[in-house]
């Protein structure tokens, strides 16, 4: 079945540690890729998105993601996390440019002060 997979259910880091959250998708053809963040009690917010061009995409709050087409991956990274990055992170795929998003199950990030 076509899907979006996030490898880590819960990640716990100390402040200043580096972060990498994995995301793989199984859809063929043209896709747009996204990472969303959901802080406790808040709505989904867009961190970054990839459509075409440079596979290394920079987003808000120091996050970046790299699209590796051959691996169907779109991993999220941040060199140094902060306590305020504690949240749920969702990878999403838009198929065929139709605003029809498919989400991964999410990764809960806990950053210890």
């Amino acid at each position, binding site marked *: 079945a076509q899907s979006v997979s996030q490898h880590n259910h819960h990640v716990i880091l100390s402040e200043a540690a580096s972060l990498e959250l994995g995301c793989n998708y199984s859809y063929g053809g043209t896709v747009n890729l996204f990472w969303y963040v959901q802080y406790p009690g808040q709505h*989904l917010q867009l961190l970054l998105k990839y459509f075409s061009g440079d596979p290394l995409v920079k987003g808000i709050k120091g996050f970046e993601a790299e699209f590796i087409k051959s691996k169907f991956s779109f991993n999220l990274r941040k060199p140094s996390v902060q306590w305020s990055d504690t949240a749920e992170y969702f990878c999403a795929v838009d198929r065929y440019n139709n*605003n029809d998003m498919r*989400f991964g199950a999410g990764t809960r990030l806990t950053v210890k002060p």
Partner: protein
Amino acid sequence: DAGVTQSPTHLIKTRGQQVTLRCSPKSGHDTVSWYQQALGQGPQFIFQYYEEEERQRGNFPDRFSGHQFPNYSSELNVNALLLGDSALYLCASSLAGTNLISGNTIYFGEGSWLTVV
């Protein structure tokens, strides 16, 4: 402020009952999508409305239905509620005809928490 407003924010229903959730899209948007987010899961696509018609549908039973009004607002109806329907229901709006490469983005509301007891 996400610009997408949903109501009610929380509600409790009994098994077998029916529920209606409402969504007003961001100003200028004409497409509304609904998602179900169960606890500890990612949002699951229910369906999408454009020009008052259901344009796409995810893997949800016919108990889930919707409507879009001329002002682009939308309703999600769920009949014969089951305990498993307990979830956060998210509405997302976007503008059709401008693909995401142009910079258009989907905006999510804060959701309606439905508890079925």
